[in-house]
């Protein structure tokens, strides 16, 4: 097939002739004969556009997307928020979609300025001074934050709250195999908050002082963490604090920057990005200005052009892998710029009051749902702390079974919690999220369905 190659056969022949070749095969003369594929790739023949889209539709029809037929109460790091139409209309304009990393600033002011605005928005949300132009996702941002902190403190000990998303902790563990970081998981207390050890390092328990403490706000079980306490603990031993903050919650919560944390990371999906089966999402990364030379990834700065006009350009490039190579602050090159633009559009659409309203609406729905669910016989809170958009339940049936049965009722009931959150043979553990999309009627129906399903 090859509908995207413009060349006619005649042109190909003409081009070959003009460079002194007589066949396409001669172009590949440098490829040893033994390596040449004798009979081409064993792939299906190319399809027409409508056939491709039919195939995609066939596959899509075998999924159950969140929507009218499957009302979504699942969260666990991926949230079902309303996305205003402006996001697709603007962020997916082809100039944003089909441009490369802005290497030639003079013809890339669009992307550069959008990223500059994104960076500003991330710092305003988090209360930090500098934000980069995005990382792959929340998990990778968390890894990069730990890399920064370990490098800055010179101590490989990484104490990670069990309240950090389990997948993120898995990713940290995977990459720790290369970086040599020493991860230690810190349990949550009955109040749903991280129970940091009383004497972090230098204590009698033989542990070394950590380089960094990592916590998530609100944490995986939906509970609000005491960031100030973590900072106090860390400061006592000269460790960094990394907070993985949910950007929606920052509409209501004190920004981590106010507590003096070193790095704030987060998963940017809730603004501008649909559930997307988990990607592409958006790694938010913000830090204090003193750490800027260790910042991973790209950074856009304001400057001027030769005529003194305001202009934007990627800056402090000597941190980056293409210049610093093995001593770069990170290996990130391609990032998630387009998702960052979508984030900026959605957030700017919400605006100052709208962001607060959004967070408030999530909190209201969450409280309403949680109270109604806890009224059900056999449904109990898994932990007790205050929550915002998500909460954990103990159920009288295995969570996976509940999710399965609830799907028949038209609900994606939530995300089952792993054994690390209190394995127990007779009960299920379910994480339930309620966004501003959920109406009272949907919540009531959900509660009624759950009541039926757990009987």
């Amino acid at each position: 097939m090859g509908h995207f190659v413009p060349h006619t056969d005649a042109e190909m022949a003409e081009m070959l002739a003009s460079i002194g070749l007589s066949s396409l095969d001669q172009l590949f003369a440098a490829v040893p004969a033994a390596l040449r594929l004798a009979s081409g790739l064993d792939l299906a023949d190319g399809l027409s556009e409508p056939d491709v889209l039919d195939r995609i539709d066939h596959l899509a029809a075998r999924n159950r997307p969140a929507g009218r037929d499957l009302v979504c109460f699942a969260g666990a790091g991926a949230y079902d928020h309303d996305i205003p139409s402006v996001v697709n209309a603007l962020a997916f304009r082809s100039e944003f979609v089909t441009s490369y990393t802005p290497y030639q600033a003079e013809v890339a002011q669009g992307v550069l300025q959008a990223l500059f605005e994104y960076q500003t928005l991330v710092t305003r949300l988090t209360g930090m001074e500098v934000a980069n132009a995005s990382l792959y996702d929340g998990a990778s941002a968390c890894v990069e934050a730990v890399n920064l902190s370990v490098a800055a403190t010179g101590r490989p000990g990484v104490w990670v709250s069990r309240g950090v998303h389990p997948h993120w902790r898995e990713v940290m563990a995977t990459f720790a195999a290369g970086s040599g970081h020493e991860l230690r998981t810190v349990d949550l207390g009955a109040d749903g908050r991280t129970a940091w050890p009383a004497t972090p390092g230098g204590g009698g328990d033989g542990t070394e002082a950590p380089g960094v403490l990592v916590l998530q706000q609100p944490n995986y079980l939906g509970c609000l963490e005491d960031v100030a306490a973590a900072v106090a603990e860390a400061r006592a031993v000269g460790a960094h604090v990394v907070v993985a903050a949910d950007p929606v919650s920052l509409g209501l919560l004190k920004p981590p920057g106010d507590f003096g944390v070193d790095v704030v990371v987060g998963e940017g999906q809730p603004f501008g990005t649909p559930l997307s089966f988990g990607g592409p999402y958006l790694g938010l990364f913000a830090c204090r200005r003193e750490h800027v030379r260790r910042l991973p990834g790209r950074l856009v700065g304001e400057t001027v052009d030769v005529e003194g006009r305001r202009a934007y350009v990627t800056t402090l490039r000597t941190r980056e892998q293409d210049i610093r190579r093995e001593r770069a602050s990170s290996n990130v090159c391609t990032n998630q710029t387009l998702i960052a633009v979508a984030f900026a559009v959605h957030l700017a659409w919400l605006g100052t009051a709208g962001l607060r309203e959004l967070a408030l609406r999530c909190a209201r729905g969450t409280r309403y749902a949680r109270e109604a669910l806890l009224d059900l016989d056999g449904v109990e809170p898994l932990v007790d702390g205050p929550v915002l958009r998500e909460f954990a339940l103990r159920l009288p049936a295995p969570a996976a079974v509940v999710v399965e049965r609830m799907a028949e009722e038209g609900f994606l009931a939530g995300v089952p919690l792993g054994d690390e959150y209190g394995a127990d043979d007779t009960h299920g553990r379910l994480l339930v999220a309620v966004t501003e999309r959920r109406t009272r009627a949907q919540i009531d129906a959900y509660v009624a369905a759950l009541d039926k399903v757990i009987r």
Partner: protein
Amino acid sequence: MTGAAPGGRASSAPLMGRDDEPTVFELSVPGRSAASFRRTDVPEWTADELVPAEHLRIDPAPIAEVSERDLVAHFTRLTHRQYSVDLGAYPLGSCTMKYNPKLCDATAFRPGLANVHPAAPVAHIQGWLELLVDLERDLCQITGMAAATLQPPAGAAGELTGLLLVRAWHRDHPPADGGRPRTRVLIPDSAHGTNPASVSLGGYHVTQVPSDARGLVDVAALRERLDDDVAAIMLTNPNTLGLFEEDIVEMAAAVHEVGGLVYYDGANLNAILGVTRPGDMGFDIVHSNLHKTFAVPHGGGGPGAGPVAVTAALAPYLPGPRPVRLGSDADAGFGWEDPERSIGRVHGWHGNALALARAHSYMLANGGDGLRRVADAAVLNANWLRHRLRDVYDLPYDRVCMHEFVASAAGLKKRTGVKAIDVAKRLLEEGFHAPTVYFPLIVEEALMIEPTETESLQTLHALAEALIRIADAAATPEGADAAHAAPRNTPVGRVDEVRAARHLIPTWDAR
């Protein structure tokens, strides 16, 4: 009236005027807003009732306060200040800036793909799992490998994943004599910067291997550096000079001989689609940049996808969970599986799923025959252009190239003072994006040119004419001055990068 900038004025360059585009913050007016929220009938508890005081923000987070109309105008104007593939050729070497078919966009917006929760039970995601299994199968076929992980969200992430696979492999295959673990990874001096950076993050040290006069890895030098401390070698083939590493089989064998693994950086896979396969060359681990070879659009810098394919021996180490077909029966369905000796997750969920779906559509559209035609045309285009430029620019390695070639402005600079960067900026004035400049590092004043297969002969011709015109004009002092002053017809003129770094302004609030 607040002193906010007028959102409805379109005087920012280029359609009319030469002004700046105000930031969204300058367009903000206190109290203005675009947001609206659905009616839910949920009780309207106040923030105080919902959030303990010690957690509650005192002032709302300052975002921006703009009308929807101004927001739309602002971002639309920004797009008019942005070059893109959809506007013209983008011959950035190593970046494979091909046309991104619109049908792949259509794929990514299918609600049945885009609205699926990543933690949904397996019964809800049969379509997604099948798509991923199919994509993995096709990638393995194209690269000649046995299995792949689709989790890595970009090339660099794929590299690091690969190095962790190397590490896990060596952990399980320690030196017979119980000696110390391997510490070094070999990388040619022409390698992309992500390679050495990934090596460091993988916990290895970089040993650089020089290129020889042919522009290929110096095999003798490679052999000198080989010993049982070598964990792996990372290569791209064709290499970043656009040349096929002809000795690849020998090199791979040599590395294997000392117990090392051979890693393929797939950034340049476009050149060899259907021609030859990394697996057949002796590679053990292969990452592919779907945002290059398989037309996932670059999005101004991302997102991409960097799946990693491996030999059967390494398959048990792949990140998990992996999408798998549950049995050979056609109706068996699909599920997740954790590889036996998995290095663990490398992504928070399942990778950049919608980017994977785009690439899958692209592969479906092309098929085996179409992908081969991609390689043919990409290589033909590069060679045609190389020929046209050979009398004007230096071509340090002037022989049949693959999908790209590296020219040099070194001679031009010596003769006229016009450097690679000036050529790049002049090319913008001519209506083309610039090539990659100053990379690979082993070529002085490098101009790395990758036309890709979707540019027509007519476009190549115009591009060649422009590059020749630029070089010719540089011969006169006025021409050279013009090159230094370029570009002058772009939304902004040449940007002061030094000032950006010296007086860092990373946010609007830092001004």
